[in-house]
């Protein structure tokens, strides 16, 4: 080992310069606190054991005599040593029996807190339910002042009508646009002529944005957390501090937000995933998270009452608003691979792969009862994917199997009919590899893209009431790798995104006709508006650096607008809250639709002619101004004619007079 004394002497600089001094100047005061530099190390600094912080008081302990004392102590030891090392215990005695309460001291205050959290309410037997409290709490509760001070009233923050955008007289939907490679975010109202800018801010978000499921809030991402914006003027409604947040998810009812950050997690204080209450801004609960590969990690039941996540061999279901485990324990399901909630009911579907002799199976479980309402065994399974229909009417399980004796993989669709008794299952066998699958929202059809490039086919199936699943139509030689159904059903767009250069096909599935075939070169995204009237195809700067734009089409495939935006990144339609109309009201409106459509058509015609009149007027003024300018220019041009002729040797100026040499210009 080198002698460090000689290090300085050995340090030499090539040009013989003196070694620079690295010490701080004489009067330098460090402006960074120890806490900032070594926060995590300081956290582990051994605290002076105050003693009383680690003590708990346990009440409702059985009162026993000295003969049973040893047994009691063992029981207590067994129960309470789960939370930490018990360093001291004290069983006060009176009249030969224990008093009924005891003191336990742990090696650290955190253990005492654990004990309080978990053992309080522990039922030892019918007559004895432990009450566990921190010793310090007694002190606190004893010294509550007699005077009760009412908490200060917080001023009411009026954010205005959070559903303001729904009141637009022309029923325009809004969408968010991120462009300038993320520098600018704008909210536009969708008008057929051209987008109307509602709000536009620079650096509104640092990465991207998300709408809440009912469209009430816009969430923006920042280094320090998430901000929620809403109302007519998009004021900031709420802020959640979660350093380094990367992903978020909303509960379907918009009451809770789940945020994920890979930075914040520590062993004692789970902070990777945090669930927040949207209205109060409170942190409700934190969770650990190993990887965010399959976001959202927590899946919500459609009514927001439960949320669940899957870890190794376990399905943990939590209930709101307590954020505690349903029935206080997780479900042990060996080998569980995937699960999802029905979008319509509190039912979870999950599947488990083959285990030695037990075949793979898909299970439907009702919650909170945990009844398994259906189990389906599957054989020779390689993989499964769960696809729910939007209302929860059907579940499709795409099963990839390797039948015995063969090498290849075939795919079946197991269709579960959720609305029928006993949930019957029908099987549709597919002869080719599956590229995409999608249910019709609000309907009972589904579309499948199958085959291999370049021979890709699309098939439409109808799940009939009589137990049959019919193939309605198949189109072959399609340039498509994704299916986008209209949110109202019936219409869909087949798109060949990215590598397939943006080929688009607009299909009406009521009679399976191709309404229009078009192309948006290098399109990377397709987004339907929430009403199903318009489709936006876009080329995002994140996937292609040229020609970034979003195009607006009608649902029939007629191109309405091409909007070029400098380095356009993302467009998201603002979702609509569910309709407030009852079924009867909707039926009435559909009956009178002819009457309403006449009024709307007239309105459209008026606005069209107004637009063309505006355009015509604008052009007229532009032309007039231009003409005037040209007249002025031509006057000057004519004045300069002699000069020009002179330059080209046609005119000569002598004796104060211009004479023409030879007419040439």
């Amino acid at each position: 080992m080198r002698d460090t004394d000689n290090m300085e002497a050995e340090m030499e600089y090539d040009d013989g310069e003196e070694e620079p001094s690295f010490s701080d100047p004489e009067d330098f005061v460090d402006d960074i606190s120890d806490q900032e530099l070594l926060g995590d190390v300081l956290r582990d600094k051994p605290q002076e054991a105050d003693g009383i912080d680690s003590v708990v008081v346990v009440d409702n302990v059985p009162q026993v005599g000295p003969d049973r004392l040893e047994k009691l102590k063992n029981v207590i030891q067994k129960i309470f040593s789960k939370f930490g090392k018990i360093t001291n215990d004290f069983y006060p005695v009176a009249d030969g029996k224990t008093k009924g309460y005891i003191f336990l001291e742990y090696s650290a205050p955190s253990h005492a807190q654990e004990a309080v959290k978990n053992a309080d309410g522990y039922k030892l037997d019918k007559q004895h339910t432990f009450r566990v409290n921190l010793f310090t709490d007694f002190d606190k509760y004893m010294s509550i002042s007699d005077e009760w001070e009412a908490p200060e009233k917080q001023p009411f923050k009026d954010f205005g009508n959070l559903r303001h955008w729904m009141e637009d007289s022309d029923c325009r939907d809004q969408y968010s646009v991120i462009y300038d490679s993320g520098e600018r975010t704008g909210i536009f109202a969708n008008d057929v002529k051209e987008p109307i800018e509602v709000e536009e801010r620079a650096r509104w978000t640092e990465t991207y944005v998300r709408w809440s499921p009912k469209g009430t809030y816009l969430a923006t991402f920042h280094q320090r957390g998430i901000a929620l914006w809403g109302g007519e003027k998009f004021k900031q409604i709420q802020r959640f501090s979660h350093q380094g947040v990367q992903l978020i998810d909303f509960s379907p009812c918009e009451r809770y937000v789940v945020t994920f950050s890979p930075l914040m997690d520590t062993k004692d204080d789970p902070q990777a995933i945090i669930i927040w209450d949207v209205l109060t801004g409170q942190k409700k609960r934190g969770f650990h998270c190993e990887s965010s590969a399959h976001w959202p990690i927590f899946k919500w039941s459609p009514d927001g009452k439960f949320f669940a996540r899957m870890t190794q061999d376990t399905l943990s279901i939590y209930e709101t608003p307590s954020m505690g485990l349903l029935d206080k324990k997780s479900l042990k399901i060996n080998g569980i691979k995937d699960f999802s909630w029905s979008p319509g009911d509190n039912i979870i579907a999950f599947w488990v792969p083959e285990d030695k002799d037990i075949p793979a199976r898909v299970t439907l479980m009702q919650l909170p009862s945990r009844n398994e309402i259906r189990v389906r065994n599957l054989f020779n399974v390689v993989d499964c994917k769960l696809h729910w229909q939007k209302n929860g009417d059907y579940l499709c399980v795409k099963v990839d199997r390797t039948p015995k004796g063969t090498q290849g993989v075939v795919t079946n669709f197991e269709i579960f009919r959720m609305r029928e008794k006993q949930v019957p299952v029908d099987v549709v066998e597919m002869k080719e590899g599956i590229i995409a699958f999608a249910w019709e929202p609000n309907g009972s059809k589904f579309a499948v893209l199958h085959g291999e490039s370049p021979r890709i086919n699309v098939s439409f199936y109808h799940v009939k009431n009589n137990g049959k699943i019919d193939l309605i139509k198949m189109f072959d030689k399609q340039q498509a790798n994704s299916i986008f159904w209209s949110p109202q059903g019936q219409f869909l767009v087949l798109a060949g995104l990215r590598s397939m250069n943006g080929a688009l096909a607009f299909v009406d599935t009521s009679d399976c006709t191709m309404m229009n075939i078009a192309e948006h070169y290098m399109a990377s995204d397709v987004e339907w508006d929430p009403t199903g009237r318009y489709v936006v195809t876009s080329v995002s700067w994140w996937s292609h650096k040229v020609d970034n734009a979003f195009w607006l089409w009608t649902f029939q495939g007629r191109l309405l607008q091409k909007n070029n935006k400098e380095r356009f990144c993302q467009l998201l339609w603002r979702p609509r809250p569910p309709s407030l109309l009852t079924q009867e009201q909707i039926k009435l409106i559909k009956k009178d639709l002819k009457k309403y459509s006449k009024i709307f058509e007239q309105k459209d015609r008026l606005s069209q002619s107004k637009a063309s009149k505006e355009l015509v007027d604008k052009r007229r003024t532009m032309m007039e101004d231009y003409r005037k300018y040209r007249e002025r220019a031509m006057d000057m041009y004519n004045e300069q004619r002699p000069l020009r002729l002179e330059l080209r040797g046609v005119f000569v100026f002598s004796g104060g007079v211009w004479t023409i040499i030879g007419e040439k210009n």
Partner: protein
Amino acid sequence: MRPILLQGHERSITQIKYNREGDLLFSVAKDPIANVWYSVNGERLGTYNGHTGAVWCVDVDWDTKNVLTGSADNSCRLWDCETGKQLALVETNSAVRTCGFDFSGNIIMFSTDKQMGYQWEILKVAKEHTKQINDIQSSVDLTMVISASKDCTAKLFDSTNLEHIKTFKTERPVNSAAISPIMDHVVMGGGQEAMEVTTTSTRIGKFEARFFHAAYEEEFGRVKGHFGPINCVAFHPDGKSYSSGGEDGYVRIHYFDPQYFDFELEA
């Protein structure tokens, strides 16, 4: 419209110019040859040989007597138009990017990459574009100039005071623009720079020349046909045809159909 295809260059076209009467069309490219063609039928009249590098610019005087070319071989050469003989050579210290005759044909100008060391009296500066300007052309009567820029716009200026009059917007960088001598139209050609294109549309001949109405700033037509970005456009002095030279090495001469002259935007 019927296009005439001129194939005379082995590399991409850098500039094309009509002479004053419009019967001749001069084209230069990144190969060392300058060509001159009959614009009525596309027949080649001759070539001017002598440059040893890419020829960036060309001009012809008002009388179609002399031709001027500037090249990457650090020289600017004067040629006799009719015989093709090289009359003069001006050596420079770097590539010559633009060159031209004055109105009388007696004075020539050229500019190079590096500073020339001459002091010019700058009469007016107009900074309207946000990215580099690729081309400037004036109208036939010299009252207006149009500039084409990489910022995807072309702008029309008054030539006496450089007042910015109109802007024409596209989604692709504009390499060249020209003003029609007889109609209120401008034509623009452009496209993504060859270096920056990583994927191009597989459709053949997608690169288009775009026509805008000069007063309304609205696009009303496009002409397809080039296989690469268009580097230079020019109107025939009589306004009845126009030409474009592209990255693909072809020059295309287009004669307008009668409908072009009758076309009117609703106003």
